[in-house]
């Protein structure tokens, strides 16, 4: 059995471009378990956005291990450290929530479901009567299943009629969706993971795939070590494992992504490395793009971006002259300044070369979470179900007919409220009930002191559904014990549109129930009904919810009508899966036709600088008619600039051994041992200047707060420091602040509304000398 802690990416299985990625079955069983006695239950891993197919090992009603599915198109049998160790061990953790909790006299006390749901329904009913649906907010996750999101979306949008629904997908994947909508008219990943098998070059933009999707990086490494190595270009201020493997590393200064990308686009156009026929036939907006980027010559932005001009030109040339290019984008762009505009420029590069929808020629606007795609497509976040357009009355009419409700019940006067605005309304007291499912905002949102104050305010009724008493659950008025992965059945869809069925392997502990059960129970107690008096939620189990969703998706780009649980038992299928594509569609837009036509598009678009909405009349006048849109914006300096008082820029992010706020991963001993405590990474140059050594404890201070952490010295670009965002407070006795988000500020991208987690100005002060050894946990980041 491999040690996936020491060897994060596992044994190499090199292969040639155009070849089949060799299988490698990874598995891990608890000590002493006899594999012959184990029953295997099909599922897929939910500890990153990759969605690796796996089987859960079950023995005597408990999960005892996991193995990768060698026939799964996503992972060919592999699992990363989180999948191997983290996915199943948290299930039997002794501190699982097993009974509902109710706040009484300031304390959370044990109760039963009936009492807890009575209380929720009573508060909800009273607020609806007194204040109306705008008093209700729902903040969900990228961790639940499709069936749960869709049920929640129908309750919120057709039952209560509140626009205040979002997911923590706002923190991880909102820009992915926004950039896809702006460029192609609708959400939906153009590319496929198999593009790695064919690409001649892979460009990774702010995407530390070596840690965020370790199995996808294994696939790339196997190409790198194969006989016809693809060129690798990495845009990242840190010297990540990806950067070290790259042929070209552009260590961009945080906050200047758009300037850099405008320059790459400009150099591509200036060198005339574009496909003029494709641009003419399949895109709109070329002249405006060309004019906008005209002043962004490599020499003009080199100093601003902190990247040599020759390297910018090399990147453009490599992009323009290599046969097949795959681009991937993640949080380095999504959680930074001008996120949507910068991510759209990646789409532009592919449009300018007509490189979409063919093997090896893909864009992967990555997701950060395993089920984020479903949060988006089901409309449990700031979207409408089936990628419908809130400003298109015909789309609203479709939903109203499907749900048999008055179209006016469905809030569509504006886009649904984004998470940061939901918390602002809660802070101001106009949202009075907030239902948080499967996420931990008390650690994951910016400016935690403020978030704790909002959640702790007694005027706000907070419902939290989770498997553990998280930092957020501790502030709740009602806590619902949730069934976790492996304890319930449902489907979910990964970054490249692969839909997996994850079966229930074991019973949830105690009184824990799925979020689907909780939502259905709420709808029943609130007596939510359609126009004819029938129950609005006409299902009570996962398969019923899936069937309802399938109808909702009919005819839309995310068409599930060809899918069923029966079908998915044999393995994942990519959507759209319908009469036209009975086996699913591997890549989108190979025909150069985009879902931008009126009646088809999910959105009319925005001004990328301000987020001003394009009106339906303006959109009609543009006559996009199935062409993609080349979107452009000027770089403008952000608010985050360093000062004399705060001279360094903080970026935060994921690391290989943990996921999110460690609710599961810290309960896997292997993962917790690998990275038990947070740290701060300081560049060698800054460490020298500040006389800091590895292991020293420093205070990191921003305008919003401070944390005290041990130092790790790295090759990051000088002026940039990094803190992993996983660590909160539930497993520490110390009262010292340590969560990265004590330092981040409340600010977001004007289009995607994704918060800026990678842009806090900070200063470092030495608190105590250490033993000159690096704190554990960051080894994968430095390529050991």
């Amino acid at each position, binding site marked *: 059995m491999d040690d996936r802690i020491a060897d994060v990416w596992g044994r190499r299985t090199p292969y040639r471009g155009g070849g089949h990625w060799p299988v490698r079955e990874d598995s891990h069983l608890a000590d002493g378990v006899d594999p012959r006695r184990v029953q295997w239950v099909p599922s897929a891993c939910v500890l990153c956005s990759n969605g690796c197919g796996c089987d859960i090992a079950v023995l005597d009603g408990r999960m005892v291990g996991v193995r990768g599915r060698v026939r799964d198109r996503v992972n060919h049998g592999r699992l990363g450290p989180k999948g191997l160790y983290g996915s199943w061990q948290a299930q039997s953790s002794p501190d699982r929530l097993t009974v509902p909790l109710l706040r009484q006299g300031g304390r959370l006390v044990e109760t039963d479901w009936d009492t807890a749901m009575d209380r929720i329904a009573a508060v909800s009913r009273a607020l609806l009567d007194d*204040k*109306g649906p*705008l*008093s209700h907010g729902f903040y969900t996750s990228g961790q639940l299943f499709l069936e749960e999101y869709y049920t929640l979306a129908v309750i919120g949008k057709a039952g209560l009629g509140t*626009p205040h629904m979002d997911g923590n997908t706002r923190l991880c994947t909102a820009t992915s969706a926004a950039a896809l909508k702006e460029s192609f008219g609708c959400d939906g990943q153009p590319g496929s993971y198999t593009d790695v098998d064919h690409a001649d070059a892979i460009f990774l933009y702010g995407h530390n795939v070596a840690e965020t999707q370790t199995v996808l990086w294994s696939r790339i490494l196997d190409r790198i070590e194969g006989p016809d190595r693809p060129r690798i270009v990495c845009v990242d201020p840190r010297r990540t494992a990806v950067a070290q493997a790259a042929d070209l590393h552009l260590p961009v200064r945080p906050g200047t992504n758009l300037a850099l990308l405008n320059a790459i686009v400009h150099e591509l156009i200036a060198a005339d490395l574009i496909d003029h026929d494709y641009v003419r036939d399949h895109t709109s907006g070329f002249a405006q793009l060309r004019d906008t980027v005209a002043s962004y010559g490599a020499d003009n932005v080199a100093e601003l971006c902190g990247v040599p001009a020759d390297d910018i030109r090399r990147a453009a040339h490599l992009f323009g002259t290599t046969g097949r290019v795959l681009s991937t984008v993640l949080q380095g762009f999504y959680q930074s300044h001008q996120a949507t505009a910068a991510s759209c420029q990646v789409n532009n590069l592919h449009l300018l070369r007509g490189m979409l929808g063919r093997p090896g020629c893909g864009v992967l606007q990555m997701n950060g979470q395993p089920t984020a795609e479903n949060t988006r497509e089901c409309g449990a976040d700031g979207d409408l179900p089936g990628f419908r357009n809130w400003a298109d009355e015909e789309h609203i009419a479709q939903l109203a007919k499907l749900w048999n409700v008055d179209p006016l019940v469905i809030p569509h*006067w*504006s*886009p649904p*409220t984004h998470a*940061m*605005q939901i918390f*602002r*309304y809660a802070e*101001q*007291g*106009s*949202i009075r009930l907030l239902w948080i499912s499967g996420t931990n905002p008390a650690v994951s949102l910016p400016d935690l002191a403020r978030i704790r104050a909002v959640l702790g305010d007694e005027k706000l009724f907070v419902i939290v559904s989770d498997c553990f008493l998280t930092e957020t659950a501790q502030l709740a008025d009602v806590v619902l014990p949730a069934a976790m992965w492996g304890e319930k059945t449902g489907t979910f869809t990964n970054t490249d549109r692969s839909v997996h069925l994850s079966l229930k392997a074991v019973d949830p502990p105690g009184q824990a129930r799925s979020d689907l059960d909780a939502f259905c129970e709420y709808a029943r107690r609130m007596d939510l009904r359609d126009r004819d008096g029938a129950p609005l939620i006409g299902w009570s189990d996962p398969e019923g919810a899936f069937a309802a969703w399938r109808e909702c998706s009919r005819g839309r780009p995310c068409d599930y009508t060809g899918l069923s649980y029966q079908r998915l038992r044999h393995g994942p299928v990519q959507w759209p899966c319908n009469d036209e594509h009975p086996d699913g569609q591997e890549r989108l837009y190979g025909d150069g036709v985009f879902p931008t036509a009126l009646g088809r598009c999910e959105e009319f678009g925005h*001004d990328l*600088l*301000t*987020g*001003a*909405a*394009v009106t339906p009349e303006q959109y009609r006048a543009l006559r996009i008619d199935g062409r993609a849109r080349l979107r452009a914006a000027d770089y*403008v300096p*952000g*608010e985050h600039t360093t000062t004399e008082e705060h001279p360094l820029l903080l970026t935060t992010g994921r690391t290989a051994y943990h996921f999110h706020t460690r609710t599961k991963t810290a309960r896997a001993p292997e993962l917790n041992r690998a990275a038990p405590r947070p740290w701060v990474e300081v560049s060698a140059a800054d460490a020298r200047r500040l006389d800091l050594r590895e292991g020293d404890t420093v205070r990191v201070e921003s305008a919003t707060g401070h944390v005290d952490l041990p130092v790790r010295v790295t090759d990051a670009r000088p002026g940039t420091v990094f803190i992993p965002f996983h660590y909160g407070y539930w497993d520490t006795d110390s009262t010292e602040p340590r969560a990265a988000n004590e330092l981040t*500020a*409340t*600010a*977001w991208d*004007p289009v995607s509304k994704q918060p800026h987690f990678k842009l806090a100005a900070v200063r470092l002060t030495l608190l105590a000398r250490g033993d000159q050894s690096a704190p554990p946990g960051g080894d994968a980041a430095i390529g050991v």
Partner: protein
Amino acid sequence: MHLPVYLGLLDSGEQALADSFDLVAEGHGDEPDVRQLCRTLAAQCRERVAALRPVLDRYGEKPAAEPERLHAEALPAARTGAVGLLRDLQDLVLLATLVDSSWTVVCQAAQGLRDRELLAVVCQAQPQVSNQLAWLTTRIKSAAPQALLAAA
């Protein structure tokens, strides 16, 4: 010729709009998007003022001759709360609309004069002002229901 009067009006209107964006940014600092975008848009207004400078120098301003009623007044102070934000954004719409309309007037005169330099300045400015109005409208639309129906 009354063009200099209108150029002066445009100049003072843009200044008033810039000052008002700054005031709203400051007064509603707890709304991060309002703070950030109003600052960005104030900077745009000042860039337009700077772009207008060579033209003003050429035609000469005639502030003394301006009829008092044509003056655009900047917002005196930011209001507070959700409804206050709505009203401040509406005031910005009024100011930006006056600026927008003034650019239209100047654009027409520039065409009559065949003044290519002025036309170039106008062509830069007009889409930007429309966009500022579009943002204000977008923000007002999303804020209005909560402010009017649910705010404490």
